[in-house]
């Protein structure tokens, strides 16, 4: 069966020019594919260019060489088909939670679907906090609001750049579970950047392991453990072990 591709990297290079210094190669010949409904994790140490990959996929930066295809079109800039969840939440501080989500939902059609906005506020558990300003929210709540905003924009693929990196471990686990619930209900395609082996093993259907300097694909580890998954279960520890083994080679 031919799977529908949502995102495809084809030999993507990224070289950053620096003033008075030799240019630095951040990505070297990165190729991978994300199929519809997949949950893919990009995992690697800092400096492996995983955030750069995400920014290229989002269309926020242009690769030096190679092509990126989203759905059936070439990525040339940011677009509504690729929603991004940032580590820094990126909520607009002058808007309430609800207004932030509305802004996402309004982007294309012009008209706001109230029911839709409310739906995603409820799904992320932010409905009761909808009239608060970002500064009144905890980190976890901010990220839930940001996820609601991205979902309301109805992207084909959700790009997440270490979204739970700044959260405490308890909040992180709660948000991971919530994300999985949303993903399983909506069957959205997710590309998730993390530097936590544990997080990658728990969330992903497949883990793309990267090495640093320059950022290169090192291995792809499939994770076919069925949902619901149990943290620290034998199977997941097995996946973690496989990832760590691949890291060392």
């Amino acid at each position, binding site marked *: 069966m031919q799977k529908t591709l949502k995102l495809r990297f084809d030999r993507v290079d990224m070289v950053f020019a620096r003033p008075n210094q030799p240019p630095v190669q951040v990505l070297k010949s990165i190729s991978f594919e994300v199929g519809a409904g997949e949950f893919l994790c990009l995992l690697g140490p800092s400096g492996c260019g995983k955030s750069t990959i995400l920014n290229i996929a*989002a*269309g926020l930066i242009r690769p030096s060489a190679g092509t990126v295809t989203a759905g059936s079109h070439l990525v040339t800039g*940011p677009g509504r088909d690729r929603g991004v969840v940032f580590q*820094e939440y*990126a909520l607009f501080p002058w808007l309430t939670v609800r207004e932030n989500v509305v802004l996402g939902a309004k982007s294309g059609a012009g008209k706001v679907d109230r029911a839709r906005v409310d739906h995603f506020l409820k799904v992320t558990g932010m409905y009761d906090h909808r009239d608060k300003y970002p*500064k009144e929210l905890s980190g976890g709540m901010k990220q839930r609001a940001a996820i609601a905003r991205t979902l309301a924009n109805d992207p084909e693929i959700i790009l997440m750049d270490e979204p739970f990196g700044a959260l405490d471990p308890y909040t992180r686990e709660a948000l991971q579970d919530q994300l999985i619930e949303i993903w399983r209900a909506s069957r959205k395609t997710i590309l998730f950047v993390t530097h936590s082996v544990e997080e990658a093993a728990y969330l992903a259907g497949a883990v793309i392991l990267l090495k640093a300097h320059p950022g290169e694909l090192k291995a792809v580890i499939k994770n076919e453990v069925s949902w619901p998954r149990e943290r620290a279960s034998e199977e997941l520890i097995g996946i973690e072990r496989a990832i760590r083994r691949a890291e060392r080679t």
Partner: protein
Amino acid sequence: MKGQYVVLSELNAEFLVPERKRLMDFSLKNHNAMRLYKVCTLILFIAAWQTVDLINSELKLYNPLLIPSPFDIAKKASALWSSGALQKHIVASVTRVILGVLMAFPPAIVLGIGIARSRLVEVVFEPLIELIRPIPPLAVLPMFILWFGIGELSKLVFIAFAAFYIIMTTVMLSAANIDVVLIRAARTLGINGWRFYSTIVFPAISPDLFVGVRLGLSAGFVVIVASEFIAADVGLGYMINYARAYFRVSDMFVGALTIGFIGYSVNMLLMLVERRIFNWRINDER
């Protein structure tokens, strides 16, 4: 281990000492008291001034015509107020400042945002703006009078000129420093073109823009006097200059103090409004 314990307990002991009763409490908690002390300073200063004047009326140390007493100034102010002259001058000056700043507002916003967010606008306008910036507004006032006449227009343009640079600079810095993540978020949400400016850039810079307007108004009150010295038949600057010609020192004091008072009140009022409407700001812990 034991030594450490002793040190720690000594440290703690310092916190446990009951606070000494002080005549004046300068601690941070005591916000209202600080305000009261400051008002006391002002009252003491005025009282001292009045006392010096009283002593001087006996000893004749200096010419009392040159430095009137606070009481004389207050008396003069109330006379000018009840005759309606003071209000007339206030209204004229305040109207000029407000209209002048309003004139500066649109070009300052457009160019400030433009220079910060567009390379093309930056290349075309920044060199010209930087060329003119160091020129003190007073230096161009005579030219403005030649170009725009001695009527209202030259004064408005003059105030606009002085306020423009302040508002434009605040807007430019603010627009250049909008959090990159917010801009990226907007782009990925598909917010482009005019919508990007109206829903992202403008709200993001609005607190700083407000500060810019506040500073622009202050600058307006600083320069208004000069333009009213040269060519005017009403306004606080005119009032001061006219009083100089007739050696009415109390009138001069009233005029100067009135401008100071208006400038201070406008600033306070706008700061109050600012805190109200921009309460979404993250570092708003005052």
